[in-house]
């Protein structure tokens, strides 16, 4: 069978130091996978490799069976993979609504059009409205994105990521820096917007991880040491060792 996303012996070196040392992962369609691991394990780097932000040193990444390891970010996005960022990455001078409109433009086929009138595009409006509703920012529609609260910006970050209708979603620490209640709301949001989609997320908050993930991948020093169901991961000796055995500082 073809996997939604497949990593085959992915390696990445910066200079002499090898950050990702042969990561393997197979994600089935519709599956939700959380990647956990100590600080500096290479989780964000892995996301940057998958989304095309950095080129691979060796190995291969397949999206729906096709290699994407030589493609640029926008080409990967056009093939149906979309990502969010750990540090909020939005169009800060545009309004919330405009942020979402930009995010749906390519997938609806308007591309670089300068012959369509943006306000006349009903499908763009409807898609942007629907996402606005989903992420609960309807009342903030005209607010400039840079002036939103932190939690609102995180919600918009997720909104931009899913707006284009990609099937494979990568979320990089979506609840980082949130309070308990904010992060509960974020989990609900993520659950809602990724229905029927393949989800890969980096997360530190264990309650979020165990609440959302079908499987958990554990990345330690650039290697995927285990990828299994939450119950099995809890019982996994290697994982316990990595987290508790003093090799790396544990993280909440």
């Amino acid at each position, binding site marked *: 069978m073809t996997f939604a996303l497949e990593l085959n012996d992915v390696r990445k070196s910066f200079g002499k130091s090898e950050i990702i040392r042969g990561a393997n992962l197979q994600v089935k369609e519709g599956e939700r996978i959380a990647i956990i691991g100590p600080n500096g394990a290479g989780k964000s780097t892995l996301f940057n490799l998958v989304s095309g932000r950095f080129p691979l040193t060796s190995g291969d990444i397949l999206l729906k069976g096709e290699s994407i390891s030589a493609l640029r970010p926008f080409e990967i996005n056009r093939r149906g993979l979309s990502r969010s960022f750990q540090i909020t990455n939005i169009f*800060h001078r545009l309004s919330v609504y405009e942020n979402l*409109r*930009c995010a749906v433009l390519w997938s609806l086929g308007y591309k670089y059009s300068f012959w*369509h009138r*943006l306000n006349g595009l009903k499908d763009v409006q409807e898609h942007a409205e629907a996402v606005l509703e989903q992420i609960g920012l309807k009342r903030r529609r005209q*607010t400039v994105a840079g002036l939103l609260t932190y939690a609102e910006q995180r919600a918009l970050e997720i909104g931009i990521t899913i707006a284009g209708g990609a099937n494979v979603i990568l979320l990089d620490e979506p609840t980082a820096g949130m309070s308990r209640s904010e992060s509960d709301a974020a989990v609900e949001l993520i659950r809602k917007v990724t229905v029927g989609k393949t989800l890969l997320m980096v997360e530190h908050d264990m309650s979020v991880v165990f609440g959302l993930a079908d499987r958990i991948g554990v990345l330690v020093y650039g290697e995927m040491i285990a990828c299994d169901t939450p119950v099995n991961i809890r019982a996994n000796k290697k994982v316990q060792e990595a987290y508790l055995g003093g090799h790396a500082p544990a993280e909440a």
Partner: protein
Amino acid sequence: MKFEPINLGRWLVWGLFALLLIVAPLIFTQGASVSLLSQMATLMIFGLSYNMLLGQGGMLSFGHAAYSGLGAFVAIHAMNMASNGQLAVQVTLIPLVGGIAGMFFGVLFGYVTTKKSGTTFAMITLGIVELVFACSLMFPGFFGGEGGVTTNRVIGEPFLGITYGPQIQVYYLIAFWLFISAVGMFAFTQTPLGRMANAVRDNPERAEFIGFNTQWVRYLTLVLSAFFAGISGGLAAINFEIVSAENVSMVRSGAVLLFTFIGGIGFFFGPMIGAVVGVFLTVMLSSYTKAWQLYLGVFFILIVMFAPGGIASLIMLNLRVIKFGRFGRVWPKLWVTCAMALVALVGVVMMIEMLYHVTLNAASGPMKELLGFAVDTTAPTGWLIALVLLAAGAFGFWRTKSAFQKAWSEVNVEIEDMIRRAEA
């Protein structure tokens, strides 16, 4: 407000703009005013096209005159060919020739410049304009060498009595193209590409992750911008009947950056204000004083430091205060502060003018006419008066400034609060 089927306010604004263009020469009837209005309108197109790059696309270009200037050269050659009978083109359509030429060079140079953004982009544009300027002196056949290329805009049979001989007819031709170009460039801001130009300006990285090749967004924006720059070049060729190396120079490129920024890059109409100010400063002020470039420079620095949004943002911020009915509380403090600044300004201007007279015009005697008085620039009286004015104004400004700032920030905090409550 975005979902109204017909935006009445917008129709009203464009209607008023058209009306203003039509009646402007009837209001300003003094000697050279039609010529000034023509220059302003040409510069408005140039500034608006420049702002497609700087304001909307976040591309700081030091070489925009390459497009308007090359457009002007092609346009003037087209006019000369038309008068020789080699080419059948109406003068009315010459700006379009300029536009297409500008666009062609946009396609050519833009491919190189827009590969990068930010500082690298700025540097490459600087290189390109220097290159074009060097070429203009290397190929006198096309560029006319030092003297430039001249033409006569009165070509062929009059069309409905229009010969484009009188300046007023040229003005209306320019006004017509200004209106069309302004509508076109405004329409651009309302298209998917126009919006993505904003997105790429704000965050090029994220734009790549929602499916857009940022290089293409910049490139297409630049090509369209070069088209409108070329139109302004074509109009300049008709207006002045001469195009020279100066048209493709760094100086011209720097000027449009200056005026666009002074007008305000954050609002669509900002560059139009910038064009009016620009023509006033370069054409009118230069006939009164030799120090006009100094005033222009100081004015630019003041805008950059204290009103980075330009004159347009100053207007819009005050309009917002008026709209929310709070202007009464700001106004008393505002005018006192402005009056104080004005007093200081008079002192500074007196000093600069006297200094210029002493250093450059000493041969014509020590007397200099200032504000209707004959002042002896070698005697201490004039200097003393200027110094007192400056000191008094500066002291007054310093004393009244904080009261104004307090009132201003209070009012704006209240307004933002009201907006937030209206949203919630």
